[in-house]
C-alpha cells in the first residue's frame, strides 16, 4: 500500500494494478485512477515546472481546470503535450513525461529565472527585446535573435514531429434535451426529461457520471450520494431514449442550439478497439439544453500559493473520496467561505490530520464553527496565510492576523507545520457555454461570482451553474430545468429526493488576495502574479481586454479557469472600481482543449473523395499515369516502358493524326436542361442562339459572366423538343450548374426549366483520326455513321456490342471525330469494344497531354485561356456573340475596357530556338535576356507539336493578330528561359478544318 492511499473508498479497483511510467520511472496505480491520483498516491508532489519562472509545480485541482500538472503523453512515437494529469486516466503501458525543464524535473537550470524577480514581469519581452540596438541587431532583428532562446526557456510542452496515426471521427446527434454536466442537477434533469419521454443526450467530461455526488459524502434519498447517482445513471442507461456520453466535453455553443462536443473514446485504453476512433467530435443539435456544468473552486492569491502541496479544497476532497488518496497527512485549510469546512471533515474522516483551519473571516457560521471544532487542530478565524515554506514540497505555512474588510495584516507571522495546504477562495459558476451562446455574464455580490446571462437561445441552467451551490437546490433546479426544457409546465415528480448535508454556505467573503511579500500567483499556468496585474494597470492598461493581452492572464491552455475572477478582482481594486464596473471578457469556444485531429476527423487522409470515370480501372491496367483534375482522375499519358512524358504524348498525338486515337471524356460536365422553356433559357445563357437548333444536332456554345467576360464553353445537344444535354468543361461543371440554378431560381423563376446533373449518367469516349469513322462503322449497329447519316455536329443513336450508345460527330482534336456516349455502367464495355474494333486500324488511347497537344495545334481554347480575364473577342470568338438577342453578359461585354485595342488576345507562338516553352512565361519585344521587361503578354499552353515538328504554344498577347509573323522573345526568369519566338495565328494546323469535315 502506498503512503497516501487509503484502505478503502473511491472509484478505483484495488484488485488490479496498472503499471505506467512518469519521467522514465515505473509507477503503479489502479483502474479508475487518473495520472494525478496515482502519482499523488505514490507520494509524488512535483509534476512540472512553470511557464516562465520554472518554479516547481504540483497538482492544484482534480479536473479540467488544472493549471499546473500538465504532462506530455508519448504513444507510438507521437508526443501529445499539455495534457492535464487530472484528466488523464492511466492504463497499462502509459508513458508520460513532465514538461518545461532542463536537464530534469528535479533540477532545472531554468529555475534561475526566478532570480530575475521583477525584471521578468508583465510585458518583459515586449519592453526588452523590441528596440534596443546591440551592434547590427536592432528592432525586430534583435527580437529574432533573442526569440530562439526565449522560446526554449519559456513555454509548455513540446509537440512532436511524428505523424499522428490515431483515428478521429465526427458524428451528428439530435435530441430533445441535451443535459451538460452530470452532477445532481444534471442527473435530476436527465432523469426528469427521460421520464417525460424526451430524447436525451447526457454528457459529462468525467469518465464517471454523477459529478459532485461521487465525492460530496452527502446523503440523497437515504443513501450515499454516490450510490444514488449510480442508481440514477443505471436507470438512464436502460432507457432507449437516452444517450449517455461520459468522457465527453461539450466545448462549444453555436447558433441554432448547435453544440460541439469532444468524446475521448479511447484515450483511457492502451489501444483503441478495432475501428474505434481515439476521439469523436459530436455535433449535437438540441431542441433545448440544460446547462448543469457546476462551478469551479477558486484559489486565493497569496505569496507562495503555487508551491507543490497547495491544492484546492474541492480537489483534496475528490482525491480522498474518489480515488482513496490523501493529499497530505497534516493538512491546513485556508478559506474565505464555509465549503472548505466540509472538506476538512471529509479529509479527517478519510484519515488525514487537520493541523489548522485558517479563515479570513473573523466571524463564521455556527455550522462552520462546529465543523472546525469537530476536525480538531487550530481554528484561526480572522487570519490569513502569508507564506508557504519548503522547497519543491510544502513543509509548512505562515499565518498572520488579517482584517478582511481592509486587507490589513497585523501581528507577527507564525509558522505551522503542514504537508498540504488546501485552499478555497469561493466558487465561480462554469458559465462558459452560456456566455458563448449569449450576452455578458452578470456579477453577483453575494456569491462574489459571475452568474450566467439571460438565455438568448433555448437553454435552462441548473444547480451550481446558476450559483445555487447546495445539492438540495441543484436537485430542485435540475428537475425544474428539465420540465422547462421538455415543455412540461407542471413538475413530473411528486417529491424531490431528500438531501442530508451540513448547513454550510459557499458564499465567500470578498477577499481574493493576501498582500504580503513574495510572488503571489494569479494565473499559475502563465506565471502571472498579482504584481503583474498591478504593473499593467500602472502602465496604462485599464481595460480588462488590454490587461488580459498584456499580462496574458487567462490565455494559457486552461483559459484562466482558476485565474480570471481573482485577476479581475485585483484589477478592479487597482482601478478603485467595483468588479462589475470593470467588466469581464466573454468566453469563446472551445471550453477546453480540443484535438485538431477531431476537428479534421475523417476529412484528413482518406476522405478526399476521388471521382472516377467508368473506364478508370481500364486506364490503370493499361499503364496510364493518372492526373488529378479537381476531384477527378484522368489519364495523363499511357506510357510505354522507358518513355518520357513528352515521348508518350507525342506518340499518342501523332497516332491520332495518322490513324486514330481515343480519349476518355466522361469527366466533362453534363447538365440535362429540360422543359418547355429550355431553348429560351439556353438563348439567354449562351452568347449564340440555341432555339434554332434542330433535334438530333449539337452546337458549340459560349457562356459569359454578367460582367461580359468569358465563363465557359462546350457543346449542347438537342435530344428532343424540350430536352437538351449541355456539356461544360470538366473544371467548371459545378460552377456552371450553380450559375444556371441561380438564374432560374432568382432571375427567371417563371421559366419552366429543370436542371439535373447527369455528368455521371454518361460515359464518354471521343474517338478521332482519319480511321475513326471506319472503326465506328465496324462496331456500331442500328445506325450508319457515314457523312450522310451523321453530318458534322449531328447525333445518332445505335448500339455497340449490345449497349445503347449516342454518337455525336464533333471534334476537339481537329480530326474526323466522334463522341460516343453510353450509360456509365456500360462505359467500360463500350470502350473495350471500341478498342477491339480499332485494333486493326492502329487505334491508340491518349491522355490529357496528347489531348492538349491536339487542341493547341488546332488553336482551341480551354480554361487556360478562358481564365476569367478574357472576353469572347480576346479569344476570337466574336462570331459567337449574337446581335439578334440579349444574353447574360451582352450588356457588359461592350464596355470600353473590354473593347480596348491594347487587350491581350489569343495568338500562337513557335519556339525558334527549338527548345520547349513554359506555360506562364512572358512574351517581351526586346532581346534582353538579362533584364527582360515590358511584357506584352504570356503563354497559356505549350506542347511539342508532332504535326509541325516544333515546340509551340498558345499565348495572350497585346495586339493579337496584328503581330502575326512578327518575332518576340519568351522570358521566364524563374525557370531561366529566354529565347526567340515567332508570333503566329493560333490555328497552327489545318486552319480550314478540312480534316474534321472530311
Amino acid at each position, binding site marked *: 500500500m502506498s503512503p497516501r492511499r487509503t484502505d478503502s473508498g473511491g472509484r478505483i479497483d484495488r484488485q488490479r494494478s496498472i503499471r505506467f511510467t512518469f519521467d522514465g520511472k515505473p509507477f503503479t496505480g489502479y483502474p479508475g485512477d487518473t495520472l494525478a491520483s496515482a502519482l499523488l498516491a505514490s507520494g509524488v508532489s512535483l509534476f512540472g515546472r512553470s511557464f516562465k519562472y520554472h518554479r516547481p509545480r504540483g497538482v492544484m485541482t482534480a479536473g479540467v481546470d488544472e493549471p499546473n500538472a500538465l504532462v506530455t503523453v508519448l504513444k507510438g512515437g507521437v508526443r501529445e503535450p499539455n495534457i492535464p494529469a487530472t484528466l488523464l486516466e492511466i492504463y497499462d503501458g502509459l508513458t508520460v513525461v513532465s514538461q518545461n525543464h532542463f536537464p530534469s524535473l528535479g533540477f532545472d537550470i531554468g529555475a534561475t529565472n526566478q532570480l530575475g524577480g521583477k525584471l521578468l514581469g508583465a510585458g518583459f519581452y515586449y519592453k526588452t527585446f523590441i528596440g534596443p540596438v546591440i551592434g547590427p541587431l536592432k528592432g525586430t532583428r534583435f527580437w529574432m535573435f533573442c526569440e530562439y532562446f526565449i522560446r526554449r526557456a519559456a513555454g509548455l510542452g513540446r509537440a512532436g514531429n511524428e505523424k499522428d496515426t490515431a483515428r478521429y471521427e465526427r458524428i*451528428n446527434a439530435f435530441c430533445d434535451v441535451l443535459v451538460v454536466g452530470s452532477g445532481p442537477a444534471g442527473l435530476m434533469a436527465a432523469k426528469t426529461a427521460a421520464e417525460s419521454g424526451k430524447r436525451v443526450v447526457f454528457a459529462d467530461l468525467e469518465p464517471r457520471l454523477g459529478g459532485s455526488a461521487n465525492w460530496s459524502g452527502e446523503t440523497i434519498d437515504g443513501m450515499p450520494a454516490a450510490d444514488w447517482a449510480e442508481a440514477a445513471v443505471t436507470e438512464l442507461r436502460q432507457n432507449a431514449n437516452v444517450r449517455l456520453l461520459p468522457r465527453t466535453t461539450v466545448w462549444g455553443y453555436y447558433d441554432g442550439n448547435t453544440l460541439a462536443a469532444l468524446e475521448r473514446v479511447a484515450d483511457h485504453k492502451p489501444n483503441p478497439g478495432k475501428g474505434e476512433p481515439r476521439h469523436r467530435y459530436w455535433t449535437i443539435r438540441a431542441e433545448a439544453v440544460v446547462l448543469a456544468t457546476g462551478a469551479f473552486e477558486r484559489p486565493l492569491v497569496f505569496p507562495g500559493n503555487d508551491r507543490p502541496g497547495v491544492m484546492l479544497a474541492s480537489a483534496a476532497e475528490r482525491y480522498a473520496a474518489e480515488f482513496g488518496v490523501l493529499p497530505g497527512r497534516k493538512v491546513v485549510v485556508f478559506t474565505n467561505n464555509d465549503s472548505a469546512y466540509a472538506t476538512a471533515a471529509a479529509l479527517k474522516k478519510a484519515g488525514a490530520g487537520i493541523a489548522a483551519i485558517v479563515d479570513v473571516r473573523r466571524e463564521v457560521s455556527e455550522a462552520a464553527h462546529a465543523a472546525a471544532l469537530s476536525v480538531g487542530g487550530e481554528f484561526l478565524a480572522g487570519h490569513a496565510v502569508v507564506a508557504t515554506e519548503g522547497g519543491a514540497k510544502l513543509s509548512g505555512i505562515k499565518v498572520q492576523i488579517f482584517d478582511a474588510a481592509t486587507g490589513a495584516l497585523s501581528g507577527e507571522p507564525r509558522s505551522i507545520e503542514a504537508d498540504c495546504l488546501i485552499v478555497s477562495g469561493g466558487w465561480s459558476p462554469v458559465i462558459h457555454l452560456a456566455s458563448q451562446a449569449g450576452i455578458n455574464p452578470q456579477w453577483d455580490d453575494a456569491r462574489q461570482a459571475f452568474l450566467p446571462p439571460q438565455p438568448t437561445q433555448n437553454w435552462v441552467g441548473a444547480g451550481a451553474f446558476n450559483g445555487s451551490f447546495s445539492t438540495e437546490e441543484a436537485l430542485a433546479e435540475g428537475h425544474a430545468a428539465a420540465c422547462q426544457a421538455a415543455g412540461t409546465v407542471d413538475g413530473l415528480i411528486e417529491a424531490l429526493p431528500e438531501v442530508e448535508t451540513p448547513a454550510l454556505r459557499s458564499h465567500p467573503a470578498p477577499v481574493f488576495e493576501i498582500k504580503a511579500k513574495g510572488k503571489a500567483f494569479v494565473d499559475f499556468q502563465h506565471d502571472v502574479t498579482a504584481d503583474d496585474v498591478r504593473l499593467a494597470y500602472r502602465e496604462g492598461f485599464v481595460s480588462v481586454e488590454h490587461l488580459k493581452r498584456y499580462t496574458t492572464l487567462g490565455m494559457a491552455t486552461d483559459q484562466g479557469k482558476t485565474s480570471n475572477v481573482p485577476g479581475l478582482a485585483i484589477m478592479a481594486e487597482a482601478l478603485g472600481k467595483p468588479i462589475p464596473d470593470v467588466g469581464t471578457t466573454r468566453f469563446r469556444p472551445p471550453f477546453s482543449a480540443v484535438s485538431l485531429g477531431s476537428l479534421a476527423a475523417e476529412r484528413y487522409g482518406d476522405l478526399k473523395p476521388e471521382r472516377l470515370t467508368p473506364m478508370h480501372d481500364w486506364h490503370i491496367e493499361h499503364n496510364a499515369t493518372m492526373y488529378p483534375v479537381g476531384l477527378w482522375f484522368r489519364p495523363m499519358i499511357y506510357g510505354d516502358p522507358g518513355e518520357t512524358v513528352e515521348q508518350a504524348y507525342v506518340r499518342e498525338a501523332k497516332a491520332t493524326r495518322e490513324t486514330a486515337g481515343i480519349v476518355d471524356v466522361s469527366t466533362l460536365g453534363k447538365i440535362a436542361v429540360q422543359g418547355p422553356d429550355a431553348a429560351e433559357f439556353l438563348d439567354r445563357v449562351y452568347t449564340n442562339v440555341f432555339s434554332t437548333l434542330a433535334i438530333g444536332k449539337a452546337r458549340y456554345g459560349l457562356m459569359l459572366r454578367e460582367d461580359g467576360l468569358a465563363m465557359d464553353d462546350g457543346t449542347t445537344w438537342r435530344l428532343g423538343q424540350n430536352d437538351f444535354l449541355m456539356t461544360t468543361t470538366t473544371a467548371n461543371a459545378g460552377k456552371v450548374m450553380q450559375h444556371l440554378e441561380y438564374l432560374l431560381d432568382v432571375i427567371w423563376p417563371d421559366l419552366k426549366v429543370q436542371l439535373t446533373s447527369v*455528368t455521371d*449518367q454518361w460515359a464518354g469516349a471521343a474517338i478521332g483520326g482519319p480511321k475513326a469513322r471506319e472503326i465506328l462503322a465496324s462496331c456500331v449497329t442500328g445506325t450508319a455513321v457515314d457523312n450522310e447519316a451523321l453530318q458534322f455536329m449531328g447525333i445518332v443513336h445505335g448500339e455497340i456490342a449490345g449497349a445503347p450508345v449516342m454518337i455525336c460527330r464533333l471534334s476537339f482534336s481537329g480530326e474526323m471525330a466522334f463522341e460516343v456516349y453510353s450509360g456509365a455502367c456500360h462505359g467500360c464495355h463500350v470502350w473495350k469494344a471500341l478498342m477491339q474494333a480499332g485494333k486493326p486500324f492502329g487505334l491508340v488511347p491518349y491522355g490529357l497531354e496528347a489531348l492538349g497537344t491536339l487542341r493547341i495545334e488546332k488553336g482551341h481554347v480551354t480554361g487556360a485561356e478562358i481564365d476569367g480575364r478574357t472576353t469572347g473577342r480576346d479569344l476570337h470568338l466574336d462570331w459567337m456573340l449574337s446581335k439578334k438577342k440579349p444574353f447574360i453578359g451582352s450588356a457588359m461585354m461592350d464596355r470600353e475596357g473590354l473593347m480596348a485595342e491594347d487587350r491581350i488576345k489569343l495568338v500562337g507562338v513557335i519556339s525558334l530556338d527549338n527548345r520547349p516553352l513554359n506555360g506562364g512565361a512572358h512574351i517581351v519585344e526586346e532581346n534582353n535576356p538579362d533584364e527582360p521587361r515590358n511584357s506584352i503578354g504570356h503563354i497559356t499552353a505549350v506542347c511539342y507539336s508532332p504535326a509541325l515538328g516544333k515546340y509551340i504554344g498558345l499565348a495572350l498577347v497585346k495586339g493579337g493578330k496584328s503581330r502575326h509573323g512578327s518575332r518576340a522573345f519568351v522570358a521566364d526568369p524563374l525557370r531561366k528561359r529566354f529565347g526567340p519566338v515567332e508570333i503566329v495565328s493560333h490555328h497552327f494546323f489545318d486552319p480550314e478544318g478540312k480534316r474534321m469535315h472530311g
Partner: protein
Amino acid sequence: MVDVLSPLKPVWKPGTHGNTANGIGVVLTETQPGSIVQLAAWQGQEKKLLAAIKAVSALALPDGAGGGKSGDSKAAFGIAPGKFLIVDQNEGLAAIFSGAVTSEVGTVTDLSHGRTALRISGPKAEWVLAKFFAVDFALPAFPVGSGIATLHHDIFAHIQRTGAEQFDLYVFRSFARSFWTMLCHASEEVGYEVS
C-alpha cells in the same frame, strides 16, 4: 443484355469485417436497381405528377419533399418540393414515365447509370449514417419510406429509409467507390458484413 459494371468492383469484399466481437452492426450491399428516375413537376402540377407516379408504379406518395414509399421492387420519395426519385429493380422505367408525364406536367430524367444504390441495414445503421450526414435518422423523425437529399462533404446523396433498420442511399456513380470505402471504414467499429 449487356452486363452492368459496378463502380465498386475492386473494393467489393464480401464477408465480415471490422470489430465483430458484439455481432454484426451493419450489412452493406449494392442493390443495383434497373431504373433510377428523377421526376419533377412544374409548380401547381404536383398532384398530376403524383397521379402519374401512382399509375406507373402503384406507389401512392404524399405531396412534398421527404415523404415516400417503398415496396419489394419499387421505391419512391420526395427529394425536393415537386421532385421525386423513383427506383425500380426493373429496367426501362424512364421510358414508361416519359409516356406518362407530359411536358405540361413536368420532366423525366433517367439517372439509372448516374447514381449508385447502396443499402445499409442492421442495428447500427443509424449510428454509421450519423457519422456522415447531419440528418436526424431516428425512426420517429425519419420514418420508414421517408427520404432526404443531403450532402457529405463533396458527396451528394439521396437517402430513403426502407425499413426500421434499413436505408437505401443513392450517390453519384463517380463518387461511389470513395463513398463505399468510407462507409466500410466508418462501419469497422461496429462490425460489418458485405453481401
